[in-house]
Structures are given as C-alpha cells and as structure tokens.
C-alpha cells in the first residue's frame, strides 16, 4: 500500500514537471531545468553520503570535469554530437573517480573530507591556472550538443536542444531515469551491501564483504552521475569556469543533500529544489527589498533550522505527519 502511494506521488510530481513548460515563462522553465540538473547532482552525492557513509567535500570535481570535457571536445562553432561527447565526459569522470578513489577511500571520516577536497582543489587550479584550462575566465560552448537521430536509423532532424522547452524535457527525462536507476541499484545486493557498509563496515568485513571494492564502485557510480549533471549544466549555460569545480559548489550540493535528507533519494532531489528556489526567492529584490542582498544569511538560518528541527531533512517531514511509529529513531 505504502509503495503504491509513494509511486503515485512520484508520478504526479513528474507529470506536473512535464507539463510545466506549457504554462511557465521561459525564465522559470530554465530555472527549473537548472534545478533538475542540480537534483541529479544531489542524488549522485547522496549515494555516497547517505547510502555509503562517505562524506565528500569534493564532489564538484566530477561535475566540473564533465563540463570541461564537453567544452574541450566541442568543435568551435558548431554543435557537438551528444552521442560521442556525453559518453566521453562520463568515461573521463569514471576514470577520475577510479584513480582518486583508489587513494581517497583508504581514508575515512574527516580525512576523507579533506582528501576529496584536496583533489577537487587540485583540479580547480589545473583549470584555473593553466592555458589548457582557459584560466579564470572559463571556456564558452557556442552551441548545445545535438542528438542526431539518423544514427539510430530514424529519419528527421536532430532533436533541437537549443529550444529551451525541449531541453527542459530532456533534463526531466534524465533526472527521472537517474532516480529510477539509483532506486533499483539501492535495492539490489550491491545497494544493500552499501547500506550495510554505512551502518557498520567492520561487521560487513567480518561477514566476508570486500568493502573497499564496494566503496570504490559506489564512488565511481556517484562520480559518473555527477558528471552527467555537470555535462547538462555546461550544455545549459554554454559556459564553464573553474568555479563549477570549486569547494563552494561542493559545499552547496552537500547542503542540498543535508537539507533534503541524507539517505533518501527523493530527499536529495527535494533538497536541490528547495535550496535553489529559496536562493532565488530570498535574493529577489522585489520581494525583500534591501534585505535581498543578504539572502545568504537568511538561507543559512533556514538550513540551520532544518538541521536542528528535522534530523532527517525535509524528506523526514513525511514521517512527522504520518502516524506510523518510527521504531528506528531511538537507539
């Protein structure tokens, strides 16, 4: 019964999102596109933080790396082919995750936070301070990649992602796919093992689980999905700069996950929605006048309030209002 109810909610939300471009103004359609991209990013981090127990402060490295791969691989004045550049970007992210994962996963706790941060900052300076990276000004991507259909044996023009509504639906489809994919993965043997590792890694090893390999796989999967988000973001804005690799960005996505509720996929996605929409609303001068300049203060206070009052984030609100007793609360 509960499963059916939650599926119904999910379907309703997706449907509402799908019809939004028919009523929303261009500005808001593009804003929600950005939000959905960040939702993919937040869900990818939640796999690591909420389900594997690894708090990373360098997740933007994957996001930015994929964006830069697109920027570098795209021809100067024509559209790149999505069928080649997207797999390339994801592979680079997976490879980067494999390389760094072999090192960072030897640490845990605070050290893991520091080492992931260090790797992300290394990448930041690589793109910030070298001619290869384009420096602090960033790199422009003049045309969005195309989805060429003739590859699939279908006739007709490529799907026009330059159209903001088409791009919106494209992002929505990928966000839904990422969500369903992760849900499936988390319910598999692999996912259950990850949750076991998060809960008690020593016990998992005593049971015979090679936990390092599981963590590495989770790290790679998470990094690759973050790369998908980064690729889409670079596509949307037509521009990449070192900021998207920076620790501000890593911290932002971590706040989305905490705001929405660690260890809950829809929570992470919800966190991205609320975080960005709050940011948008609080910095709106028409609503808050002079106070809008200090939107970060207001946002900070809201996040502190959520962290204090809702230990399970916004996703925990559903539990507050349901009458089902939460047995696992008091340990």
């Amino acid at each position, binding site marked *: 019964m509960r499963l059916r109810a939650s599926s119904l909610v999910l379907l309703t939300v997706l449907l509402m999102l799908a019809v939004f471009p028919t009523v929303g103004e261009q500005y808001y359609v593009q804003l929600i596109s950005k939000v959905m991209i960040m939702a993919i990013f937040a869900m990818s981090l939640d796999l690591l933080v909420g389900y594997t127990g690894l708090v990373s402060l360098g997740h933007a490295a994957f996001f930015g790396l994929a964006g830069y791969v697109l920027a570098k691989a795209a021809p100067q004045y024509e559209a790149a082919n999505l069928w080649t550049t997207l797999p390339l970007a994801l592979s680079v992210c997976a490879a980067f995750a494999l390389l760094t994962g072999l090192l960072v996963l030897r640490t845990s706790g605070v050290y893991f936070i520091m080492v992931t941060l260090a790797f992300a900052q290394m990448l930041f300076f690589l793109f910030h301070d070298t001619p290869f990276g384009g420096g602090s000004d960033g790199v422009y991507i003049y045309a969005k990649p195309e989805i060429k259909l003739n590859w699939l044996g279908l006739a007709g023009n490529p799907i026009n992602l330059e159209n903001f509504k088409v791009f919106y639906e494209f992002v929505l489809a990928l966000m839904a796919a990422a969500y369903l994919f992760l849900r499936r993965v988390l319910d598999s*043997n*692999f996912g259950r093992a990850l949750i076991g590792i998060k*809960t*008690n890694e020593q*016990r998992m090893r*005593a*049971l*015979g689980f090679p936990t390092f390999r599981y963590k590495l796989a989770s790290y790679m999967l998470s990094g690759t999905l973050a790369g998908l988000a980064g690729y889409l973001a670079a596509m949307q804005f037509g521009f990449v700069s070192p900021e998207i690799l920076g620790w501000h960005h890593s911290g932002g996505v971590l706040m989305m996950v905490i705001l929405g509720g660690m260890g809950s996929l829809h929570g992470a996605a919800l966190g991205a929605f609320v975080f960005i929409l709050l940011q948008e609303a609080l910095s709106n001068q028409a609503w808050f006048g002079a106070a809008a300049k200090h939107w970060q203060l207001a946002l900070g206070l809201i996040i502190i309030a959520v962290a204090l009052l809702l230990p399970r984030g916004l996703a925990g609100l559903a539990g507050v209002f349901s009458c089902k007793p939460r047995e696992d609360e008091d340990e």
Partner: protein
Amino acid sequence: MSEAVLRAENLCKRFGGLAAVNDVSLELHIGQVHALIGPNGAGKSTLTNLLSGDLPPTSGAIHYRDADQVGHELAGMHSDCIARFGIGRSYQKTNVFLPFSVFENCRLAAQSRQPRAWRIFRGADHYADVNALAERALAAVDLGARRDLLAAALSHGEQRQLEIAMCLATQPRVLLLDEPLAGMGRQESQTIIELIRRLAPDHAILLIEHDMDAVFAVAHCLTVMVNGEVIASGAPEEVRASPLVQQAYLGDEHGGRHG
C-alpha cells in the same frame, strides 16, 4: 586425530609494551569444540580478533586448510578474505545492524557468499537460496518469529542470538564464538548450547565462554589463558584437575561460583 583445519602458531599481539597475546599456539579440528577460558583481560578476545583478521598479529602464523585440503596462510590477511575462506565469528559486544530488520541482518550475511554481487538491477530479496539460508539461520537460534522486527527492537539476549545467526548464515566451516551466552537467559543459553552440539560434528568451533557449566557440557578440548599466555591445554577434565589452573583461574576467581 584428523589434521587441524586451523592452526595458530606462536601468535603474538603487542599493544605498545603490553603483550595482549603472547606466543599462543592453538589447533581447531572439524568435529571438535575447543573452549577457551581465562579471566577478563587474559587476551581471549584479542586472540579471536587475530584469528578472524580483525587485528593483524605482531608475529606468528595462522595456517588454514580449506575444504579441498589446500593450505593457506591467514596471518596478515584482511578480515573479509578470512571470512570468505569459511571462518565466521560472532562478537562479544553485540555487533548487529541495528536499523535493519532481523531477517535483513541474516539475509545480508547470507548474501556475502553469493557470487552475484554486481547484478545491480535485480532486487536483493529475490534470491530464493539466500532467503532460505537466512531463514534457516534464524530458525537455528530460535528467532524465526522475530524476523520482521528491527534488530534494535530485540532484547539484549535476542540480539546475542541474532549475532550467532548472522555468523551461521555465512555457512562457515570454522566458528569463532566470543562469549555467545553472555547476557542470555537460561532458556536461550540452552538453545545455543544445543545448537553448538548440533554444529560440532561438521564444524570446527572455538568457544570463548565464562559459563563453566556450558563449557564442560560441550567442549572436547579446553585451553586456559592468563595474562596473554596459555597456561594449560588438553582434555577438559585433565585441565580442570591441573593445580596450576586451579590456582590461577578456576580456584581463585571463579571457584566460588562454580566450585
């Protein structure tokens, strides 16, 4: 007697200047319950941790003979490799997954032996063999009726039973049981003692236990440790009669309770 399945040779573990385990040698055989007793702080749990790979030994060797009679050296191996060889352990301090259901605790344990870890699209609950193993392990410790409760909701004694069930669900050949009866009621203890008896014929069991009645009821072999060293080892009755043991352990500390 058959050749030992697990043979520890001159195991040492030092923490700084303290020798928690000092030059201990020990054999486990299939079909035998080997009890390990000694006062608190004697190094029994540390020895278990060395055998299971939770701690690396400072020196010494651990030889293991697998089901195909192939020999392996376990000293220095990680605990997950040792566990996959078929050496299961339970913890003295209850170490179960509290937020999971009782069944999921055992299912996860049984899953550890499945070679299908990377099938990421099939629901974890759809492996009939894994589920059956988990159910059987729960039934063996008499927890079948509690399967859908959260582990956190179990009583302390029941959590101890679950601890053993998880170990069983991995189908080990060698069982390292660290004070399995601690904190259990009389009836639960009886269930576990019966279970150890039932398992003994085709398992090698190391039993660390303070309950002397239980030890003498099931042990084929008894080793006494004091201050990290073995002071006596052999048939239970002989060891019990040894004056050294009487003085160092049974006589002094626990004589009143069991004498």
